[in-house]
């Protein structure tokens, strides 16, 4: 019996190891390729293990490319500003909705929920943002359309408040004379760190990874974020060459390792999120499960 169950566990582990490899192998291929010498790449193609290591692609990207550094700057700013506003707006909607005594609560909840059922689609949205709000080729184009608020996050956060903040606690704060703002900041928020971390992570993920707003609304390269830059390079690898510090004619630009360079930019685009992720992972898994099960 014991032996049987051991065998069973071993089978399960084998399945999970295979699935993990399935997830990781493309990423290993990417990283390895970005570290491989250009000549070897041209001869052997992208491989799982670099046969000759070269850091030239990274050296070029980090030392000589204005576009990559500016892209990082744009992405970091947009992610920080967007996430902060997103979290504040989400809490602003979710907390009142979680209060069972709020008059008009059901109508307001419906107004939010309805946006998940029906939408105008890309054409009217595009025309509105470009014609009425004139956001084309401004930093607002990367922050405002679509990403500032997710109705699902509002519903998830409201559910979290309802099932984790006892009504008595809020009531007690009110009797003590605390204003609603004080109650929210000093009483409710400290009890809600997992959900705040979750929506913060989801929002920052959406901003960091966003390329659609860039595709729709940006064609001025001063506002290219990392993802838009990656998108541009996917179609045209020579694009980076035109943005070097030392000028297009320089020796480094001339020997541009374009095959490996592509992969190196992709690594730079993915790395920050992958590095932050393990620290948030605990909250993240907790958060999606709370929202999913009870939402």
């Amino acid at each position, binding site marked *: 019996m014991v032996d049987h169950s051991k065998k069973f566990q071993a089978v399960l582990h084998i399945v999970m190891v295979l699935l993990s490899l399935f*997830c990781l192998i493309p990423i290993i291929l*990417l990283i390895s390729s970005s570290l491989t010498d250009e000549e070897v790449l*041209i001869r052997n*193609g992208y491989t799982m293990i670099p046969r000759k290591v070269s850091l030239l692609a990274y050296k070029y990207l980090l030392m000589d490319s204005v576009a990559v550094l500016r892209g990082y700057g744009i992405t970091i700013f947009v992610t920080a500003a967007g996430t902060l506003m997103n979290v504040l707006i989400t809490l602003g909607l979710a907390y*009142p909705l979680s209060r069972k005594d709020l008059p008009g609560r059901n109508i307001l909840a419906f107004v939010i929920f309805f946006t998940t*059922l029906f939408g105008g*689609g890309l*054409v*009217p949205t595009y025309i509105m943002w470009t014609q009425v709000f004139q956001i084309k080729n401004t930093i607002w184009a990367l922050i405002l359309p679509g990403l500032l608020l997710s109705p699902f996050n509002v519903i998830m956060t409201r559910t979290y408040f309802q099932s984790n903040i006892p009504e008595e606690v809020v009531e007690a704060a009110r009797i003590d004379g605390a204003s609603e703002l004080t109650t929210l900041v000093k009483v409710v928020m400290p009890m809600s760190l997992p959900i705040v971390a979750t929506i913060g992570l989801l929002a920052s993920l959406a901003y960091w990874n966003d390329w659609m707003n860039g595709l729709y609304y940006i064609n001025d390269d001063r506002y290219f974020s990392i993802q838009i830059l990656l998108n541009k390079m996917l179609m045209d690898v020579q694009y980076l060459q035109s943005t070097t510090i030392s000028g297009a004619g320089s020796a480094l630009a001339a020997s541009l390792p374009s095959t490996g360079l592509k992969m190196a930019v992709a690594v730079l685009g993915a790395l920050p999120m992958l590095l932050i*992720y393990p620290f948030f992972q605990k909250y993240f898994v907790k958060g999606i499960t709370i929202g999913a099960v009870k939402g």
Partner: protein
Amino acid sequence: MQRVNKSKSRVKKIYRFLPLYIFMVPGLVYLLINNYIPMAGIVVAFKKMDYRKGIFGSPWTGFKNFEFLFKTKDAWVITRNTICYNLVFIVLGTVTAIAVAIILNELKNIKMRKLYQTIILIPFMLSIIIVSYLVYGFLSQESGFINKSILAPLDLKEISWYAEARYWPVILVIVNLWKGFGYSSIIYFATVVGIDKTYYESAAIDGAGRWKQVTCITLPILRPTIIIMTLMAVSKIFYSDFGLFYQIPRNSGPLIEVTNTIDTYVYRGLVKNNNVGMASAAGFYQSIVGFLLVFGANYLVKRLDQDSSLF
């Protein structure tokens, strides 16, 4: 007298909740702009769009835009692609996610279980642009892993992946599964892990094997979660992941037949071909049919299982 009291208490009540309403203002204003105004703008499908006059000032054209759209073969192709891909994604995605959730739950080694959870969520963290680089690493004709390291050593001919449509349905299904199965596995796992252990213990005493336990305890308990998740996916069956269908095939012309969906069609119409009329007609078609599908799916579930419906 009573009436005065009542209205006074109402004013008092509104006053008491005023701060809460103020908290909601930014979010409601944003939804008005980002979601509700474009909903009204959907009438653009019945207009001949003139950018100088705006959506509401442009002249009406009746159903002209729709006539043009449905006269082409495109309307059929984009509808077929959007729905068929989604159906495959839903079936494969759900089966994989439930299987992985059950396996995770059966694992006794908690440390390893956590590690697996972390790893299978990694693809979910990557932008579709990065994923398109990953796919390119495998499929690139001159330096891709498959052509250079698998086909060449076997003396097989190189395949120009980005020019041959017949491989793409499979490629897109694999990419979609790769990116999404971790996330949905975690959602199902959350339900599985919450199941009372005593059910399994008493089932084991009654002689139920592992498979029997899964089919008679785990799956029935998962039923509401499966229904809700599937319902949400079905209600989005008229929508596709724009990035998956536009970026992963690198917008390659020869692949259009199998990669064009409603969303890529609308984008190409609006931005690339400057054909706002047809794009807006396709967008209208998507919004309306999508909306009807949500209600249809919800109605069906309500009839089958009262408690599991979405609204």
